[in-house]
């Protein structure tokens, strides 16, 4: 059996006792609980140890001696109740303080203890004995305390621990399990607790931090998905590009041959007008790689397609950036403000992931283009300069830029979501942009841009 008493209760008992000019007594309030320790080791089967722990929370001093018993030591239940009132059920023991006496229960104490055990119905009622010993010349005073459980036959003395009373220079300050039963304390905590705790009793900070964590996790996952998607798209487009290259090469060869033939023929006749080959190809190219963005009602679910692949330039020596081409007018749907990721919709504490990342420049291919367009278009609220296209022109991506752009776009999107300054326009753009991923193939298939000028004008109306 172990017993513990909180430091303030102990000092309160000592204070009352030391200030009394005679013997002093009172009741101990608290609780008794059982602790079961199961220990498992390799050498033995698990053993369970049952430990009874007595915790003393508070004390109730008696105003005078013989207040609840008479000369014969007979306890009066009436007086007991009038002293304890409703604290009676919390009584786990009683204490007595006497100066200059032995650490042994006296005759009357034993008689009273027996009766209290019966009346209070606590089988293991404890008795705390304080004795105060002073030397003859009053130079040294010792306060000794012993906790008895007289109802047992053996091991009647229990050690009483007082947490944090001792040498704490080498130990940490322990938080004891003895609760604070003060009413005032409980009141204050209740009043101000709402600022720290939510309705479930969990600290708010914890929940917020957890939310941030979840958000980050979701973002990462979303990014992964987007990366995968855009990689696929990139692959596909890469294939298309290769095919187109091949076609271009083929056509070139053909035209050259024809030209040669013509030349040869004309050489016989005269010169014919040369054609422009690239443009139609360009046009066709462009016509193919427009995207058709149907309006999408859910903007919240957009998978933000980060153009992990850079804006793919055409194989022409002056590759028009797709962003240029598609950068547009208002009719062009693009997501100006990016909707939040389809991951868990989280409240947006400003502190987390503050916006302010520069919007990336026009990036990405068809899918990403719209978004990037939107981005570039909506870069205003964020007041970041639109970065120009920095691809190296041959279709390869500069990873860092992309990644950064991706992240930035995310943030931007998140941010832009809230900062819908050019609301209507951007919303349209956004809503239409939601289906970007889904319509990749269809876009390519359709070949008719909604409002895309297939010529170089788009380049001109690039970023705002």
């Amino acid at each position, binding site marked *: 059996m172990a017993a513990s008493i909180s430091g303030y209760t102990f000092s309160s008992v000592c204070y009352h006792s030391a200030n009394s000019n005679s013997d002093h007594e009172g009741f101990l309030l608290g609780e008794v609980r059982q602790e079961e320790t199961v220990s498992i080791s390799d050498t033995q089967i698990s053993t369970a140890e049952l430990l009874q722990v007595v915790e003393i929370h508070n004390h109730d001093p008696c105003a005078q*001696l013989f207040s609840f018993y008479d000369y*014969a030591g007979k306890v009066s239940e009436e007086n007991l109740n009038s002293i304890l009132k409703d604290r009676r059920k919390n009584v786990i023991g009683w204490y007595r303080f006497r100066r200059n*006496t*032995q650490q*042994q229960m006296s*005759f009357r104490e034993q*008689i009273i203890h027996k009766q209290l055990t019966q009346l209070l119905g606590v089988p293991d009622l404890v008795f705390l004995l304080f004795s105060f010993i002073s030397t003859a010349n009053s130079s040294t005073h010792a306060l000794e305390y012993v906790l008895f459980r007289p109802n047992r036959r053996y091991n009647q003395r229990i050690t009483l621990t007082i947490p944090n009373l001792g040498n704490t220079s080498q130990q940490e300050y322990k938080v004891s399990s003895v609760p604070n039963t003060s009413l005032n304390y409980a009141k204050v905590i209740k009043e101000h607790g709402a600022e720290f705790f939510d309705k479930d009793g969990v600290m708010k900070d914890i929940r917020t931090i957890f939310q941030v964590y979840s958000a980050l996790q979701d973002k990462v996952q979303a990014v992964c998905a987007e990366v995968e998607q855009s990689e696929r798209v990139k692959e596909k487009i890469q294939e298309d590009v290769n095919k187109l290259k091949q076609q271009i090469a083929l056509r070139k060869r053909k035209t050259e041959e024809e030209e040669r033939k013509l030349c040869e023929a004309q050489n016989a006749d005269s010169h014919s007008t040369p054609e422009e080959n690239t443009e139609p190809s360009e046009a066709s190219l462009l016509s193919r790689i427009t995207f058709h963005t149907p309006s999408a009602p859910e903007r919240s679910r957009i998978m933000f397609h980060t153009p992990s692949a850079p804006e793919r330039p055409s194989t022409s020596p002056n590759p028009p950036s797709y962003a240029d081409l598609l950068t547009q007018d208002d009719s062009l749907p693009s997501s100006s403000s990016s909707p939040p990721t389809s991951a868990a919709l989280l409240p947006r504490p400003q502190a987390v992931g503050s916006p302010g990342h520069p919007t990336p420049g026009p990036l990405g291919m068809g899918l990403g283009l719209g978004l990037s367009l939107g981005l570039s278009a909506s870069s205003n609220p964020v007041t970041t300069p639109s970065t120009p296209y920095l691809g190296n022109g041959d279709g390869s991506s500069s990873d860092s830029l992309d990644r950064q752009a991706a992240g930035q776009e995310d943030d931007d999107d998140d941010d832009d979501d809230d900062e819908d300054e050019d609301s209507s326009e951007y919303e349209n753009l956004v809503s239409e942009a939601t289906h970007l991923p889904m319509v990749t193939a269809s876009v390519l298939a359709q070949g008719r841009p909604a409002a895309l000028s297939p010529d170089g004008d788009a380049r001109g109306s690039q970023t705002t």
Partner: protein
Amino acid sequence: MSPEVALHRISPELRPLLCSVVRNGRVGLDSTNCLRVTDLKTGCTSLTPGPCCDRFKLHIPYAGETLKWDIIFNARYPELPPDFIFGEDAEFLPEPSELPHLVQWDAGNPECLLQLVKELIQQYHHYQCQRLRESSRLLFEYDSLLEDPDYGHNMEIYAGRKNSWTGEFSARFLLKLPVDFSNIPVYLLKDTALDPGEDVALLSVSFEDAEATQVFPKLYLSPSIEHALGGSSALHIPAFPSGGCLIDYVPQVCQLLTNKVQYVIQGYHKRREYIAAFLSHFGMGVVEYDAEGFTKLTLLLMWKDFCFLVHVDLPLYFPRDQPTLTFQSVYHFTNSGQLYSQVQKSYPYSPRWDGNEMAKRAKNPFK
């Protein structure tokens, strides 16, 4: 601690109670000494000006042991009854209803504490008798003694602690022997310096084991009796017979003691008779004689113009023991400056002669 010191240091309100204890307190069979008080301490704060002691240790003789009980008052509340700690007898828990002076404690009655202590001792005695039940042999001893009216009510039992190693049980019986000392001549009892108190003879029988194989009896006499009977060496009680029991042994000892006392009394009378006879025979020659104890007689006799002194010393156990005659010359000195004297022990003598006869017969050796 002397009683006066104790009384000086105790709180004034408690003084009367303690006074009756230390001055008049005699508890139990062995009442030669008063109860002793030691370790006076106070229950007030150390800043309280004295005298304010209110708790002390009381030494109580009981069955050959001394019980050391703590008595705890509260000087600030002197009207409240005290509390007790029964020293090593942690299991002794008397029933409060058997302690009327506790239940109706009256702090105004100076005798209250003493009476309460007496009641506690009684309860303690019962408690010890209960403990005898652990040994059937000793219980038998106890019960048999209890039935005898002579001894049953004057018994103190101390059932000792079991020896934790060997599990031995020991007990001590202290019995007051019902011997009548009243006829002992007063002179015999007068020599003790202190107030002798009640004349009592106590027999203490210690059983060192439960089977009564090691039994050690001892006789305690109050000092005056001891002196009257000739000192501690004069009395030898028989050893406890192995296999015997107290109910047989104790009367034996009692009888022995009684006989001795009788003898002493008789001796006194005999001596008186002897002296009286000598006085009548040698009336003019008597120089001096012990008129109280009749132990000495000095005669100045003349034989053929030779004067000499005769000192007659009568022993305690006269007439069993022969008186000693010392002849002393009045003329001559020895080398050491003393009067020449000669002790004569062997002369015809018989204890059966009465005083007159002795006086007559004594003339012969004088010649």
